[in-house]
């Protein structure tokens, strides 16, 4: 028994030591699903000898939950959306990148160099940006789709064939645009009206699903789907006769950002990875795959020429404004959480 204990302790010590040795050439990435082409990771490994491990998530909120429940110190970089960057900074989950630590920081496109969610790009670099709106199957409906009413007060032929994203932030932001009210309203009448509007809209919805937002459109299970622009483009390329809408009331704009996490076990490698993603050629490869937009200057010559002409990337003249999801304070957020629970009870 004692020998057994001793030898297993020795084995444990050995394996810990082995892990520590391997850690010198490692990078642990926490990333959205279906968002990073393997070739890009392979190229990074070929150039630097750093081995990349990637875990994935399907929403900003689940990423935050994992990090807060003990994921800190495990991952080096994550890829939160705009509003989540400011939340994570407020929670103290981000490390600051000092001046000069990123050689390619100057490559960030000027319009994304000082965003409101991360002033001065203290902890983040741009990954991709795009929009969230919805796509409509043109075989099912030929009328005007440039209105948020398609989601919330749909015409009879689309009722019961709508898939919404299973994401409180995206649904609430779109609903606020539909009603023309602020995203973090404190006006009781507005909030009551929002609650009632969503309760009424639910009867027209078939499902809430984010992971299969694209598949339900391709398979024809849904005729309307709340969706990101790049996913809509992919659905169209996979054969669905879908058109992406830019409603006159407005649409949700977003930017995902690579952030340096606090207590990153491989901080140096994380910075190398961020520099790598600031090379126009590399981030263009991501854009060609994900079909969104890069926030880096000089990418255009590396982009697939067909991308720029995509209808999903070109809002029409009457399109409303793109708005970022806002971060509400605790008291206001509690009401929105209650409205969401009411919607799904």
């Amino acid at each position, binding site marked *: *028994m004692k020998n057994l204990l001793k030898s297993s302790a020795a084995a444990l010590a050995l394996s810990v030591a082995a892990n520590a040795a391997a850690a010198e050439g490692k990078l642990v990435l926490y990333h959205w699903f279906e968002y990073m082409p393997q070739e890009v990771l392979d190229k990074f490994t070929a150039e630097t000898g750093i081995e990349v491990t990637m875990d994935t998530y399907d*929403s900003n*909120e*689940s990423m*935050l*939950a994992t990090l*807060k*429940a003990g994921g800190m110190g495990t991952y080096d970089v994550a890829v939160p959306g705009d509003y989540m960057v400011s*939340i994570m900074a407020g*929670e103290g989950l981000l490390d600051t990148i000092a001046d000069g630590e990123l050689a390619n920081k100057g490559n960030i496109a000027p319009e994304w160099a000082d965003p409101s969610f991360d002033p001065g790009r203290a902890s983040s670099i741009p990954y991709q940006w795009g929009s969230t709106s919805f796509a409509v199957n043109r075989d099912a409906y030929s009328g005007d789709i440039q209105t948020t009413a398609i989601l919330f007060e749909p015409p009879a032929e689309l009722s019961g064939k709508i898939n919404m994203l*299973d*994401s*409180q*932030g995206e649904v609430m932001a779109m609903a606020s645009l539909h009603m023309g009210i602020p995203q973090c309203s404190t006006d*009781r009448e507005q*909030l*009551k009206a929002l*609650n009632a509007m969503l309760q009424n809209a*639910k009867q027209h*919805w*078939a*499902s*809430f*699903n984010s992971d*299969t937002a694209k598949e339900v459109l391709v*398979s*024809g*299970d849904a005729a309307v789907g709340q969706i990101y622009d790049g996913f809509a483009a992919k659905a169209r390329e996979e054969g669905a006769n879908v058109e992406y809408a830019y409603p006159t009331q407005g649409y949700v704009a977003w930017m995902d950002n690579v952030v340096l996490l606090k207590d990153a076990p491989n901080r140096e490698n994380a910075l190398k990875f961020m520099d790598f993603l600031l090379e126009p050629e590399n981030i263009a490869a991501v854009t060609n795959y994900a079909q969104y937009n890069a926030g880096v200057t000089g990418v255009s010559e590396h982009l697939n020429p067909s991308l720029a002409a995509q209808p999903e990337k070109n809002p029409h003249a009457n399109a409303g404004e793109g708005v970022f999801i806002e971060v509400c304070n*605790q008291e206001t*957020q*509690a*009401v*929105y*959480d*209650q*409205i*969401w*629970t*009411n919607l*799904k*009870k």
Partner: protein
Amino acid sequence: MAAGAASGGSARADTYKDARGWLLLPSWAVLGIFVLGPVCMMLIYSFLTKEFRGGVIWEFSLAAYDQFFFDRGLFGDEPPTIEWTYITIFWRSIWQAGAATLLSLVIGFPTAYFIATRPENVRPVWVFLITIPYWVNLLIRTVSMKFLLRDQGPLNDFLIGTGLIDSPIHIVNTNFAVQLGLFYSYLPFMVLPVYAAVERYNFSLSEAAADLYASKWTTLRRIVLPAVKPGVVAGCILVFVPSMGSFLAPDLLGGAKNFMIGSLIEEQFKGNAGNWPFGAAASMILLTMVLIILMFSARQQAKADKAGG
């Protein structure tokens, strides 16, 4: 069944009487660390104050249980009334899990009976066949099920092709789809314990009943069912309990339009709400309900054993 196994086991365990403490140590350690530990943590968390956007503040609070049982309106400042939201969600889960259990029993019992009445050398083959689909990951099986049941899926194509129906039956995103999904996920948990019970059943009892002019139905009802009841009860519990907490089938097949207990709890940890104490409290209430069901069935079992013995 459980009682039988325990009494049979204690006689054998005596062989290792001296080493028993040592030999049980790994099991106790695993149970303590991986079962009792997390449950205690959840219990403690459910009585703590919620931290905005996930996490807990180490201050005692009954807010989570208050939120579960009392409704204070959209803005949280109305006089409290009984909160039906979560009771409805729990009731829905119980109902769905109950329907799935019934479905499993109706399909699983004849299956188990069939296997147990095959010649002894082919029975393992049948059991093996039952378990084969379960080598595939639950997520894959649930997604495949969705593809089968879709409006444009093979099932509807077949029914329309044979002229049985004119337009596709909507199954996906209904409660029935969730029940089917749960039933399919947990069917072996019904078949295997029932099979174990039927296999031990002495079939000469059925012959005796037949000799005494009992009809087949009466034999099944009065002789077979009481004899295999422990297996049936075990099967029902094994299907019902995981079905209640399941969230894969409700999300994928039911369209996630209505929370089930599992998805409600998941939302508290992984969703926008980020209300860990409430998620922990809902888990504790679920756990309490399951414990009550188990204790009730154990007492019934003990009573039946006493009456039988």
